[in-house]
């Protein structure tokens, strides 16, 4: 069917009349053609070096196609590698996610233990004393935030948290002051500013907290204010604060004491706490036996020389120090005291005068010199008698017993210059090395560890 057959002849006629078009202007046609070609020329000159984005993408796909083919051909090998990477990614990613999630936790939350553990790890990995100080300072701020969250959630601030908080504040103060005076002053100022902000925070929280939490908050504020005053004193005279902190016994939580008691000493060093508790039960007798020994006393009275006097005082005064407590083998004690005839040991030294044991009163021989040596040999016995007293004090304050007064106090050297701190290795206190590493209180700060007891 032709188009003419499909259409009304009248309409076909009308449409055919439209087909008659006036001839196109030749000049106009040439101008339009020239304009078109000029435009094409300009576009060609501006053609980008590379192809169109679509073509570039197509070409890149073609370039990397062999890689896909290679992977396809070795599917099993790459599947194994991909599995290993997947597992590693999952493990590391899971750990990272857990760590990140733990950073937002606070006491009472399941991940809080991870947060505290991670803080301990961070501090132990600190490359210098300065970074350790900075971390400790940041952790005190974290504790303050945690208090705020606990209050916001209506949670009660427990004693364990408070103890940890105080311990960290004391630690950071010690780290600030434990350096040269020039560096300690700005550090203490910084600590003071942080503590002030924390006090402000807690003061604000006090206004909106219920009564059950107010007590804890007030205690915290009070403690922090004490530390701020301590910082003020330190800013005025860093050396004095440093000395005072060395002498002050750090407040050790009772839980820590229990932990220390339960853990025996390590590395061959007898745990002072353990010996302290067992001593009184084991050797209650040495005291009377020592006093029963008649031999030293008569020699002292008989001799005109003033030398016996120290022997007499040995029996009375328990000065001989707790060194005896450390000795688990009180061998001198029984040999010297239990034997009525102290001949074996003294005779060896007395040589010329075997009499002092039995004839001490009778002999007129003023031979005090051997007696003097006698007393020296018996000093262990006398000191042994004093052990019960020492052990009693040990149970009260383990840190005190652990520290030997005779041992030279480890004076911490100026550790760091502010913002240019030097890392120095501090002497580890055996009492602290015995601490359980899994203890919830974490490792005791180095600075505080070094502080000897009174």
């Amino acid at each position, binding site marked *: 069917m032709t188009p003419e057959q499909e259409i009304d002849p009248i309409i076909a006629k009308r449409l055919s009349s439209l087909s008659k078009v006036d001839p196109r202007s030749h000049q106009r046609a040439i101008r339009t053609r020239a304009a*078109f070609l000029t435009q094409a020329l300009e576009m060609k000159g501006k053609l980008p070096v590379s192809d169109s984005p679509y073509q570039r993408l197509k070409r890149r796909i073609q370039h990397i196609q062999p890689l896909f083919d290679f992977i396809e051909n070795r599917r099993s090998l790459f599947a194994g590698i991909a599995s290993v990477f997947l597992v590693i990614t999952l493990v590391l990613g899971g750990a990272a996610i857990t760590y990140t999630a733990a950073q937002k936790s606070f006491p009472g939350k399941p991940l809080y233990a991870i947060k505290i553990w991670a803080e301990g790890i961070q501090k132990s990995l600190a490359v210098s004393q300065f970074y350790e100080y900075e971390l400790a300072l940041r952790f005190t701020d974290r504790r303050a935030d945690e208090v705020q969250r606990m209050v916001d959630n209506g949670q009660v601030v427990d004693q364990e948290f408070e103890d940890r908080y105080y311990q960290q504040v004391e630690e950071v103060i010690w780290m600030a002051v434990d350096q040269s005076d020039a560096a300690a002053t700005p550090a203490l100022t910084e600590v003071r500013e942080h503590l002030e902000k924390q006090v402000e925070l807690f003061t604000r929280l006090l206004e909106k907290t219920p009564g059950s939490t107010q007590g804890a908050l007030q205690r915290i504020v009070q403690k922090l204010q004490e530390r701020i005053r301590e910082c003020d004193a330190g800013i005025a005279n860093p050396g004095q604060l440093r000395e005072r902190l060395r002498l002050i016994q750090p407040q050790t939580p009772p839980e820590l004491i229990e932990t220390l008691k339960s853990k025996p000493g390590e590395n061959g060093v007898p745990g002072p706490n353990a010996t302290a508790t067992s001593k009184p039960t084991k050797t209650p007798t040495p005291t009377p036996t020592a006093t029963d020994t008649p031999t030293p006393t008569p020699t002292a009275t008989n001799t005109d020389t003033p030398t016996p006097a120290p022997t007499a005082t040995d029996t009375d005064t328990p000065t001989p120090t707790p060194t005896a407590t450390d000795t688990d083998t009180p061998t001198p004690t029984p040999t010297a005291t239990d034997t009525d005839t102290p001949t074996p040991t003294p005779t060896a030294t007395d040589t010329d005068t075997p009499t002092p044991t039995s004839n001490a009163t009778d002999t007129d021989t003023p031979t005090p010199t051997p007696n003097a040596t006698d007393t020296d040999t018996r000093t262990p016995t006398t000191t042994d008698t004093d052990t019960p007293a020492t052990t009693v004090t040990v149970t009260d304050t383990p840190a005190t017993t652990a520290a030997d007064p005779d041992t030279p106090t480890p004076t911490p050297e100026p550790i760091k210059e502010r913002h240019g701190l030097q890392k120095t290795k501090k002497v580890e206190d055996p009492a602290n090395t015995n601490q359980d590493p899994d203890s919830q209180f974490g490792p005791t700060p180095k600075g505080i560890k070094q502080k000897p007891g009174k």
Partner: protein
Amino acid sequence: MSPFDEVRLLSGARALDLESLAEVYDRFSPGLYKYAARLLGDPDLAEDCVSETFTRLLKVLRQGFGPQDHLRAYLYRTAHNWITDRYRHQPLPFLELDADLHADPAPSPESQAEERLENLQTRAALAALTPDQRQVVVLRFIEGWDTEEVAVALQKPTGAIKALQHRALGAMRRWLKKHSLNPTITGER
């Protein structure tokens, strides 16, 4: 134009080869001009339509797109879209068939005036159609394309072209019956 020639022209045009572009222009611009002039009835507008159609072709070729084949259909579709936009923004003035309509001062003024009047009426009738109906009617009955070629140009199936053609002719008939003073248009066939 054979398919081989079309592919050669298109590949040259895609590389913005001037010779290929000149050949494309020389081959298709006369027909495009007539197509535009029939629909628009204005030589200047028709020339603008041709110029804009080839400019659009250049732009798409430069961007890496454009026709892969059927270059003529692509060009007519572009021109048709331009004309449709023109209709939308500037519709043809309504034709007043009054007695004051004067003929051109040509040697036979009556016949020329009548022919001009009929052309105006026909264009008005075409303008009243939908764009697709108008394109089908023009390509099929003025340009003389067959149904398959029109289907390629409109990117529609052949059946759809036939349906469009049927509706377009009916609409034109009704329009002319309504607006024409010529009693020969019965509108019934």
